[in-house]
């Protein structure tokens, strides 16, 4: 804002103008590069499958149809994976944000005798971990393999999120806590009645981070629950399709699809199914993040400075 004010009084030199022109052009090119691959996928998902094979679809579908979506969403296993994805996102986010905020509150209380101990034991785990195999064996020993809870339990508290929330709570004026104590409020009351409502901005940020993580996860499905198709997630289903098309990269999937379409039996192709699932898997997040931009920029800065 202050920069803007000074701009008004600046005499605009030729060099300045050239700089601006280049800069604005660059930004527009950047936006195209960021958006084009995604918009192209949207166009393909809305185009008739056997028409897409001919190529030449860029930003708009040539033969518009909802059929790809109807086809993908009529598959029962896919509906199930959407349900599981949604369930782990909602449940995982709620549990994680509540628990992380609770621990963050305890380590923000200066009088808490275990404050240093708790902080250090959490922060240490940022720098090392047991690694893939020991973690896998732990999940096996805890009987979490093939269980829904393997999506939720290991990720209850993220250390980075913990530090971000703690920094925020430390910024709440002490007088509020003092007066709560005067009124006889215990720590639980203070936490639920004062800290949680006042921390809504930071909790919104952390919810976004956790929800994105949960929605986008596929590796834990692959590792722990791939034996149980009822627990598959949308991302994992998409990943399997992607792996199939990668494996047959050399054997020309497009040609196979041509044959498929020519037979006139089905009018979906691997390409259009992949495009459609890609969009289904990313749309929920893309609809939400722009509205939380103000919050996550702040949250990230807060964590970056202290963490």
């Amino acid at each position, binding site marked *: 804002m202050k920069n803007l004010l000074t701009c008004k009084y600046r005499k605009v030199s030729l060099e300045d103008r050239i700089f601006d022109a280049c*800069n604005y052009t660059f930004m527009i090119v950047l936006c195209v590069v960021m958006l084009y691959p995604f918009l192209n996928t949207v166009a393909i998902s809305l185009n008739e499958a056997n028409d897409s094979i001919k190529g030449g679809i860029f930003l708009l579908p040539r033969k518009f149809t909802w059929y790809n979506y109807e086809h993908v969403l009529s598959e029962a296993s896919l509906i199930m994976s959407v349900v599981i994805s949604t369930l782990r996102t909602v449940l995982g986010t709620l549990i994680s944000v509540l628990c992380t905020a609770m621990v963050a509150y305890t380590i923000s209380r200066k009088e*808490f005798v275990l404050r240093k101990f708790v902080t250090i034991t959490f922060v240490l785990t940022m720098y090392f971990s047991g690694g893939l195999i020991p973690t896998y064996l732990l999940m096996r020993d805890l009987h979490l393999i093939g269980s829904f809870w393997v999506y939720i339990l290991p990720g209850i508290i993220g250390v980075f999120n913990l530090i971000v929330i703690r920094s925020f709570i430390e910024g709440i004026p002490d007088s509020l806590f003092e007066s709560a104590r005067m009124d006889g409020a215990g720590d639980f009351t203070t936490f639920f009645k004062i800290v949680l409502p006042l921390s809504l901005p930071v909790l919104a940020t952390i919810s976004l981070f956790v929800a994105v993580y949960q929605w986008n996860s596929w590796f834990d499905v692959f*590792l722990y629950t791939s034996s149980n198709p009822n627990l598959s997630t949308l991302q994992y289903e998409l990943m399997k399709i992607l792996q199939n098309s990668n494996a047959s990269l050399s054997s020309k999937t497009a040609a196979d699809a041509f044959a498929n379409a020519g037979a006139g039996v089905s009018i979906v192709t691997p390409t259009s199914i992949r495009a459609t699932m890609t969009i289904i898997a990313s749309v929920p997040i893309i609809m939400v993040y722009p509205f939380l931009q103000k919050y996550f920029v702040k949250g990230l800065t807060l964590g970056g400075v202290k963490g």
Partner: protein
Amino acid sequence: MQTQQETTSISVHLESKPRATKFQQFFRKLWGQKALLAMSLPFIIWLFIFKYVPIWGWSMAFQDFKPAKAFSEQTWVGLKHFTFLFADEAFFRVLRNTIAMSTINLILGFVTAICLALLLNELRNAMFKRVVQTISYMPHFLSWVVAASIVSYTLSLENGIINILLVKLGIVDEPILWLGIGKYFWGIIGASEVWKNLGWNTIIYLAAITMIDPEQYEAAEIDGATRLQRIRYITLPALKPTIIILLIMNLGHILESGFEPQYLLGNPMNLDYSENLDIFVLKYGISMGNFSLATAAGIFKTVVSFIFLFSANSIAKKFGQARLF
């Protein structure tokens, strides 16, 4: 309230035997903070089970680990798995790929994010700036599965926009099978990482830029400094501490070139260039069941990361720069 508690504990101190008081005081205080304890204790237990217990599993690397046997029944083999790793040609290829990809990602990631932050800061139209930022954050929120799907379509032989553009512009005669040629793989990963995280990585730099005193720019303007000079002599030096801290943090991850993009975009044709340490661990550990060897490779990764983190930090300390700890 607090002072009252302290005075009572002092009087207790005077009456009781001096040796036990420290513990007594500690536990009395802890008892007074039951609620805080109840709020954190379950998660301390959680932390130990999920984060500290697996570290115990490192012992596997020094055994011929058989999952069916109890810990006391395992045979200890010393450094056998480590010597095997360092004699294995495949391990060195994997190590080369890991270091190459993470170095490319590190340099590309830093340079592009800093440049974009500087340029965004020069945009005078606040509305336009906001729109550009929002768009540039978008790919960060996509999963790697989605991103890999988009990348592989963008690079595809017949309909990929990259090949279409290259052929139309006459740069190449025939479309290139990008993901089928190993030597392009590192570049593809680097470019995908930039596409995905460029906007996101600028956030921290833009935050640091807002801390700069606007008077500095005004003074520079009066002295006749051009736009580029102001960037060069005011904005960039102000970003130095942020850049150094992020660099140290990232050096600790030099053996973590990422797992998802390599796994998702890798295929038998580019295997020699795409397989990195994490994929190696997964392949040996989960697919082949050689837990000990995979754990040894994992330990190697953690130890090297620590060495890098600490040396980067102490170098920064020596040069009097901002540092992590």
